[in-house]
């Protein structure tokens, strides 16, 4: 076991866990942060995408102890049901979510893109979400949602 201290969605947290646990399990099972989803566990699906020091990462591929002293942001840190982020509103308005399983990771990837590039082209959006697999929407509505959010944020 090891003690891991880091910033989660702006708040300092401290948690004790086995050293072999990955960040996704740490968030979901030890910190009750269930926005990031458990998908493939191989970095192929993107459902667990979170921000680590601002960069999108597959939480399932991050060994939890390496987040010591660093900052993690999940979908919960981007917005809430009461105060949704522009991206989250756009996903509902433009039908970017269907079953919703990929949506937390999708929005985290889109959020990382818009932080870096407030004027994305359609290709920029596609390249930002290639690591997030969606089996419902066919992606067109997701790309539209992200472009709409980018428009509204400007």
């Amino acid at each position, binding site marked *: 076991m*090891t003690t891991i201290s880091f910033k989660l969605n702006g708040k300092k947290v401290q948690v004790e866990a086995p*050293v072999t646990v990955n960040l996704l399990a740490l968030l979901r099972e030890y910190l009750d942060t269930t926005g990031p989803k458990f998908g493939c566990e*191989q970095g192929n699906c993107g459902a667990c995408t979170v921000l680590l020091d601002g960069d999108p990462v597959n939480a399932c591929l991050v060994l939890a102890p390496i987040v010591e002293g660093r900052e993690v942001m999940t979908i919960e840190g981007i917005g809430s049901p009461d105060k949704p982020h522009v991206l989250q509103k756009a996903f509902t308005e433009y039908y970017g979510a269907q079953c919703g399983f990929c949506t937390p990771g999708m929005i985290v990837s889109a959020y990382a893109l818009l932080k870096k590039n407030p004027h994305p082209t359609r290709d920029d959006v596609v390249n930002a979400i*290639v690591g997030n697999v969606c089996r419902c929407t066919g992606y067109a509505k997701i790309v539209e949602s992200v472009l709409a959010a980018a428009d509204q944020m400007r």
Partner: protein
Amino acid sequence: MEEAQYFAPATLREALRLKGKLGSGISVLAGGTDLVRDMNLEFKIPKNVLWIGHLGLEYIKLVDGVIHIGGATRMQTAGASKLLQQKANALATAAGKMASPPVRSLATLGGNLVTASPAGDTVCAMLGLGAEVVLASTKGKRVIALDKFFTGPGKTVLQAGELLTEIRIRPTGAREGSAYLKIGRRQALTLAVVNAAARVRLDAKGNCVEVLIAMGAVAPKPTRAVKAEKLLRGKPFTAEAVREAAAVAVTETRPIDDVHGTAWYRRKTIKVLVERSLRMAGGLPVEVD
């Protein structure tokens, strides 16, 4: 079974001491995109973990005319590097497109080399650029040319007590270029069915004075097409010469049928990739006529 121990040393010296002491009993964690996946799938249960993210091994700099890249440099850093884009384009291309953004902000160049997949994206690019790697241990350092580094699928000359600390690449200069190309089953998040990289330097008259060709996923390890290189070296760099060389390169492959593609398909496509990457590296039009 005893619980694994996690080590995150702050200095290379301490990391090498641990690696020297525990050898194969300690698994090196760089980006984690291979190791943690293998742990998740229970392919590998490490006895101990050595994280090398605090050793200052993420850098890309030009020192005395050679590009020095830290072993723990991440794909996104390499892909965005102006120095690599201008002076080692094959590597910037491979690193910048590999897998997906969330993987690229974790995965490292050193990790890609040590994993030693015959299909590794940046592995092929670095082999085609003629890179060298620095292997460090408590006993000192040794520098190995990348074409002597791989010994088989997932196997390298790296000893149990050693860490891959640096990659060195000669920058491309005037009338010199490099290129990396890949065919996957889709555009992103996919293993290369085949990949190829080339580095070409011409003289003022358009003769090829230096050429390197690397091919991936067509043999048990990433492979140089040395016969094809020999055919091109010292001769006018023409579309015909490039096409002939690509045909020779195919004879230097030993592809297999697997779930990603057939040997037949790999032979057909590697020829196209070698030809195109040579054209791109040597400044010929890329449309294959």
